[in-house]
């Protein structure tokens, strides 16, 4: 990569001058290559089909930037792709904004950009516009990324957090807590027999197959990222004005994730995921959705975990492994390790 004599980001990379242009021409354009981007206009000009658009944005500040199973780059692409996909849209275009800290190694930036390009290609979306700013050393954490995305809504599909209905089956596309514990185990230097890897993945392909199979019988979808499965279920219970009942024994959790959670005093239901989706579907469609999910590489460990109820609106109730019941509340803040 012919990136002018600097091994690290300098303030000039964020200015409007030559260094900034070189970054665009030698790094971003070759990696993200598409017609809309290559015009290098002030805005990307896009073809869209008739109908409704969905738009979403998300900002990524993960530390460490590189972690088992992914890096901030693919997280930034997949995160926005997933937000569009769970809204029932077909994700098409992304923008990306970088905030880089002076002194950030260009080799790391290149690796992040490569992973974004690969993630975009895999998800079938184009990165069509972008921006770079550089902040003084000590004023950033290496690299922050914002992405925004546009998707086209599928005709006839109406999903939303307000549409969960009593009787709906609650399905999750795979094991919970993988991303959060992959990050925590790196941060805390935990080592297990098998390394915990982030589940970071674009879910639009998986969701497309489910919608193709059962269409309008899917009422609500959401990717349980920050706050984990428990927060997602609580949010949808609130939005739809329904109750949720789940069976703790049915929750898919990897043994190494469970072990790490035990050590740190965390509950996997609150730990972040980056490649999972929760479906609320009409009960008669539940088995078919499970079959579709399990036939897909990202859904092999999909499970039916509970159902929507009319009782206890706006609350999440779990049947414990002991056969008793408890409420799982929304967390107040970040889940912190307990003291003993």
């Amino acid at each position: 990569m012919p990136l002018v004599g600097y091994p690290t980001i300098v303030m000039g990379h964020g200015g409007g001058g030559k260094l900034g242009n070189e970054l665009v021409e030698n790094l971003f354009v070759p990696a993200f290559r598409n017609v809309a981007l290559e015009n290098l206009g002030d805005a990307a000009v896009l073809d869209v089909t008739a109908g409704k658009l969905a738009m979403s944005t998300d900002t990524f500040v993960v530390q460490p930037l590189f972690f088992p199973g992914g890096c901030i780059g693919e997280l930034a692409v997949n995160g926005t792709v997933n937000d569009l996909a769970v809204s029932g849209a077909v994700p098409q275009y992304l923008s990306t904004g970088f905030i880089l800290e002076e002194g950030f190694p260009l080799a790391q930036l290149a690796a992040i950009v490569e992973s974004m390009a690969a993630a975009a290609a895999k998800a079938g979306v184009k990165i069509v516009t972008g921006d770079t700013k550089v902040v003084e050393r000590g004023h950033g954490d290496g690299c922050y990324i914002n992405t925004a995305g546009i998707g086209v809504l599928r005709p006839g599909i109406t999903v939303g957090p307000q549409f969960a209905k009593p009787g709906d089956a609650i399905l999750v596309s795979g094991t919970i807590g993988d991303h959060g514990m992959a990050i925590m185990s790196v941060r805390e230097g935990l080592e297990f027999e098998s390394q915990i890897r982030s589940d970071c993945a674009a879910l639009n392909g998986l969701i497309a197959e489910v919608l193709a199979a059962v269409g309008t019988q899917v009422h609500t979808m959401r990717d349980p990222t920050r706050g984990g499965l428990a927060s997602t279920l609580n949010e949808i219970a609130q939005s739809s004005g329904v109750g949720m009942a789940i069976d703790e024994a049915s929750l898919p959790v990897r043994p190494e994730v469970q072990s790490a959670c035990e050590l740190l005093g965390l509950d996997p239901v609150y730990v972040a995921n980056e490649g999972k989706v929760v479906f609320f579907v009409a009960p008669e469609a539940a088995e078919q959705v499970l079959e579709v999910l399990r036939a897909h590489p990202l859904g092999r460990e999909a499970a039916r975990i509970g159902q929507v109820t009319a009782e206890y609106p706006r609350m999440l109730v779990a049947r414990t492994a002991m056969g008793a019941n408890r409420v799982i509340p929304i967390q107040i803040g970040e889940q912190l390790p307990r003291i003993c």
Partner: protein
Amino acid sequence: MKYLTEFRNGEIAQRMAREIHQIATRPWKIMEVCGGQTHSIIKNGIDQMLPAGIEMIHGPGCPVCVTPLELIDKALAIAAQPGVIFCSFGDMLRVPGTDADLFQVKGAGGDVRVVYSPLDAVELAAKNPDKQVVFFGVGFETTAPANAMSVHVAKRRGLTNFSLLVSHVLVPPAIEAILGAPGNVVQGFLLAGHVCSVMGYWEYPPLAEKYKIPMVVTGFEPLDLLDGIRRAVVQLEAGRHEVENAYGRIVTFEGNKPAQKLLAEVFEVTDRAWRGIGVIPKSGWRLSEAYREFDAEERFHISGIHTEESPLCHSGDVLRGAIKPAECPAFGKECTPRHPLGATMVSSEGACAAYFNYGRFISAEDLAKAGSGLTVND
């Protein structure tokens, strides 16, 4: 996860619960001492599995909860000072002092860090010789050995920029305070398994004898707790009052001797104020004469702290078993985990927080109704 999953087996738990139903002929009130046990009982719903007459009373064994407000204010004042790196276990960060919590101090520019071991704080002191590194050493006998080791290591390494803000409390004097109080209702005790893993249980037979109360060293998993409760009920029904060990895979009678030796060297017994209870004589540890130079309270002279507990808070009554959390008029209204008024709501292991978080303001029957349609088998 060996040693965990086999102690969470739902079928065996049901069987053990049935056995307790068969044994119990009368109502009994049993106190679990440790906050970790309270958390596990409520989270797993162990209390819902017991006969109606067997009542679990949630004891004062949550160190975060019983840490006096005054000490939290001191911690905040020290953490806010320039040139200080203030280290703590994670769950102290959210505990509100009079005006703020450690998160807010951090947000305002204080260097507050979460560590998983006090020895990490010692390492920080070695790496930052121009800073004062303070570790907030809160806890029962369980966390004490690591805290003792931190000052021991700091002394050996000649680190003059490390200190410990200590508020160690001890289980046996707290049990005696509860049993000796007028109107005590507790008839049996589940002793805190992890405290006993350090201290053994040689301190308890005189208490069991003096107050004619059965005591069972108990673990934290559902089957551990059910076994502890079962053994306590068996003793109560038979009129016995012995100290039993139901946590034999971890606890011995003598406990961890090297740890006890270190504790005796680094700490000395002192009177301590317990939030929600008051001062209990000889109920805590402070740094001994030989290690006093590492006492953060000596190093940072913080004065002018005035604290006042909310008159609405009945945490003292909860800690004695006089009322259940939801019977407090402020529960879930003025007092929530987000705005705790007192001891038992401040940490997730406090009885009030556990009741609030796990929905114990709803009756078990009603909760069961919500979950009754579950037909899950995947």
